[in-house]
């Protein structure tokens, strides 16, 4: 065995490969930045104030009626709430939102390329003396979401729910005069994992009483102390079709590429006389994890309504990143160069269980939020006190697990570097072959460390750039480069290239020990071949090194 390809690659070839990967990475960034539009489109929709004529309508009745803000069957509407006059009761007011908004005199349609819709609520509340917002005021929302594909079709109910959200509003003391608005933070409204209808209609009501049709009684007590509502805005965020197209194309391109490299890698290992060692198995798993992430099953969403796709893609990403983390641990462990026998997964149970625990926490959190949203898109775990504590608990646990993991990882890397330092001192005393192999080991480790650090640093840098550019964006300014898209595509491409590079460079080399090593003593060679034929070459070297 001649070690891995990386060691036997000449510097020229390695630099060439580095440049090639760099160029490919740049292509990914540029495709994201120049070809793709921004990842998401935002439409800010003002609620049309619809007036229900009858005052004595129950919640059940409201559920059956749709209020459309425009087009045929338009509801009876008012421009402002003040126009309604004092006779209209709060229960009679329905806010209607229909997307998409018409543009350029043309009725647009939503498309399944939009993938998912996220929505937030922005309630404008005016300061009114005697009607201030109470502390921890809750809004109780009667919500209903419908969809249809043609103007002539009736609305199909997607979800209906009664939700409670806590208002988070503030106003400066000096501004407490009539007509000033509170500064309220936006409230999460719904998250829909698919966008399969052409038109969406949201009806929203802030009832102050429940009307019981049988006893004809009003039960008051909801939506009190929320101030004077002026307007209700809903912000709909959907993925841009252009971005989806670029994303799908990248996935469709990367899936067979990584699969091919993975097959080649495994075939190489199978060609060896020995059984694959742990590191090679870990690399294989990493490749498989990436392949399942790349698998472009999203294409089906264009024809079928798959609301679970959002959840699934989260899980798939989670699987990949957890495998990546596990791989780093195993890689550092296998390069430890001490006398401890490793090469078995059980050796890493502490580290891996931290990863597993973190993943489980995040998975539970995910299921509590996006999982429940499959049945009720309006659900938000953060809206209730107990729910947000639970969610926060899981996130904190996952955070602790992540911290533990990084402490483990840093400690292992530290130990490796310490051992490397110790080995470097004793290198001159070693025979040529052993020196070569130790140097190979050190080189392999340092190479991976460097490339991983570069990838991680680039992820962080681009993340920050995209976040900053996103929040500093202004109207009327057209970005020539879409930073957020560049970030998403670039990072996706980068980890793909990272894994491909690992699979290629850390595959066993077929080159045999070169002629330069012939000078070495015979027993050294014998000794070496014996060791190399063992299943865990690395650990054996480590043991030998300890003996040295």
């Amino acid at each position, binding site marked *: 065995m001649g070690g891995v390809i990386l060691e036997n690659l000449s510097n020229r070839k390695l630099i060439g490969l580095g440049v090639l990967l760099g160029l490919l990475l740049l292509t990914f960034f540029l495709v994201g930045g120049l070809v793709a*539009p*921004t*990842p*998401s*489109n*935002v*439409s*800010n*929709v003002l*609620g*049309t104030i619809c007036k229900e004529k009858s005052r004595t309508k129950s919640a059940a009745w409201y559920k059956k009626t749709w209020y459309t*803000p*425009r087009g045929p069957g338009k509801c009876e509407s008012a*421009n402002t*709430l003040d126009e*309604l*006059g*004092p*006779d*209209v*009761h*709060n229960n009679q007011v329905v806010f209607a939102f229909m997307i998409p*908004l*018409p*543009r*350029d005199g043309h*009725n*647009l349609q939503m*498309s399944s390329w*939009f993938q998912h819709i*996220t929505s937030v609520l*922005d309630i*404008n509340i005016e300061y*009114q003396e005697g*009607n201030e917002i109470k502390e921890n005021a809750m809004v109780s929302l009667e919500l209903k979401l419908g969809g249809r594909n043609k103007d002539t079709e009736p609305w199909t109910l997607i979800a209906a729910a009664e939700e409670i959200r806590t208002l988070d509003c503030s106003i400066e003391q000096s501004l407490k005069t009539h007509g*000033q*608005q509170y500064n309220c933070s*936006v409230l999460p409204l719904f998250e829909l994992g698919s966008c399969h209808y052409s038109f969406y209609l949201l009806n929203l009501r802030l009832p*102050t009483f429940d009307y019981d049709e049988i006893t004809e009684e009003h039960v008051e007590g909801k939506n009190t102390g*929320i101030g004077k*509502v002026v307007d209700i*805005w809903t*912000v709909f*965020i959907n993925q*841009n*079709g*252009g971005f989806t*197209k670029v994303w799908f194309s990248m996935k469709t391109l990367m899936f067979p590429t990584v699969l091919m490299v993975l097959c080649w890698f495994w075939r190489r290992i199978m060609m060896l006389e020995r059984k694959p060692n742990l590191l090679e198995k870990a690399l294989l798993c990493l490749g498989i994890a990436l392949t399942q992430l790349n698998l472009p099953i999203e294409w089906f969403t264009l024809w079928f309504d798959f609301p679970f796709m959002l959840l699934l893609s989260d899980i798939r*990403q*989670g699987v990949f990143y957890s495998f990546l983390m596990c791989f780093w641990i195993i890689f550092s462990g296998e390069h430890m160069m001490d006398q401890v026998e490793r090469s078995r997964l059980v050796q890493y149970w502490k580290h891996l269980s931290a990863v597993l625990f973190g993943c489980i926490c995040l998975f539970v959190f995910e299921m509590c*939020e996006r999982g429940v949203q499959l049945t009720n898109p309006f659900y938000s775990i953060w809206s209730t006190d107990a729910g947000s504590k639970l969610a926060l608990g899981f996130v904190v646990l996952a955070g602790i697990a992540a911290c533990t993991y990084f402490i483990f990882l840093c400690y292992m890397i530290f130990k490796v570097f310490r051992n490397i330092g110790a080995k470097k001192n004793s290198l001159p005393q070693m025979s040529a072959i052993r020196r070569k192999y130790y140097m190979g080991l050190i080189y392999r480790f340092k190479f991976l460390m460097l490339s991983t650090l570069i990838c991680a640093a680039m992820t962080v840098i681009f*993340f920050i750039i995209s*976040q900053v550019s*996103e*929040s500093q*964006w202004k*109207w*009327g300014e057209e970005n020539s480069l879409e930073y*957020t898209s560049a970030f*998403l595509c670039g990072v996706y491409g980068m980890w793909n290239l990272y894994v491909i590079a690992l699979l290629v460079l850390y595959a066993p080399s077929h080159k045999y020990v070169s002629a330069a090593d012939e000078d070495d003593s015979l027993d050294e060679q014998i000794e070496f071949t014996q060791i190399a034929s063992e299943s865990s070459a690395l650990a054996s070297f480590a043991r030998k090194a300890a003996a040295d």
Partner: protein
Amino acid sequence: MYLNMDKQETMVNIIITVIFYNILTTNAIETWWSLGMNGFEAWRNPQLFILGAQPVCTHLRGLSPGQTKLCQLYQDHMPAVSRGAKLGIHECQYQFRNRRWNCSTVDDDSVFGPITEIASREASFTHSIAAAGVVFSIARACREGELSNCGCSRKLRPKGLDRDYIWGGCGDNAEYGYRFAKGFIDARENEKNHPRHSRELSRMLMNLHNNEAGRRAVYKHTKVACKCHGVSGSCSLKTCWQSLLSFREIGNFLKEKYDGATDVKFNRRGTKLERKNPMYNKPTKEDMIYLDPSPDYCEPNKLTGSRGTIGRSCEKNSDGMEGCNLMCCGRGYNTHKITLTERCHCKFHWCCYVKCRTCKRVVDIHTCK
């Protein structure tokens, strides 16, 4: 609150006298602001005027020929323009409720009376706030889906609206509001060519500048909100958007600009305006400019159109502009007791329906002599 109503009543009185006055004296310039004054309730129902046999736009007074054309082209926009003008006028009156000039309107198509013919700070403010009102209400109407023409402006996209929309979505409607307001409001200024150094040219340049300042007050002053919607709702993907401030905030902002307005004059060539005092900062596109000093608002004056402050209510112990000292220009004030009947112990809801009791109390009212 009742005090305000009382104030309004006195204001109405003033208005009535001034109308009388106006009919006898001046013929003030008609402006599009009048859209905010007349009963435009019919405008809310677009079918009414589309089906109507008469071309409504030519019957509207106050529109310049260019604006009439725009009105015909964009008939459905006119209710929003009218609402915008109304919003501007109301906000002006709120911001200047405690000033000697209180932005009171007259019942003709000049809206604010001949006072706005003087190229003063006050005229600047009226231009800006009305322009701001139009941007605001057009953007609002667009976002409600009331106007179907609102644009979908985005560069870097394939051709064809549907494909554009699917590819990269649409830009926000505030931009459309800005563009429409620019076209509509500036139309009347751009209609004629004026010679260099002429009074008309300087006024035109001033109006254009102040209109732009008003539009920018809406368009450039926004609040940004963001939503994280990445993996598991994390901030790995964050989307931000801008929303308009409330019109009161825009009014506050413009009031500040009014206080810091720049006095300007022609440059040497007589083609552009430059600041009179080079010590001050150069006015930006968001600042207001004016040409003439404000007239004396203390005494009624036929020539300037000032109505004076006689009969205006004032605060006895205040040192500000609303204080009787300043408001009454040293003429002194009358005090009388009146009994207020007002709503009290109200039980409010978030909208509309309020349960109140009525209370009576006696208050002192001070009015300028």
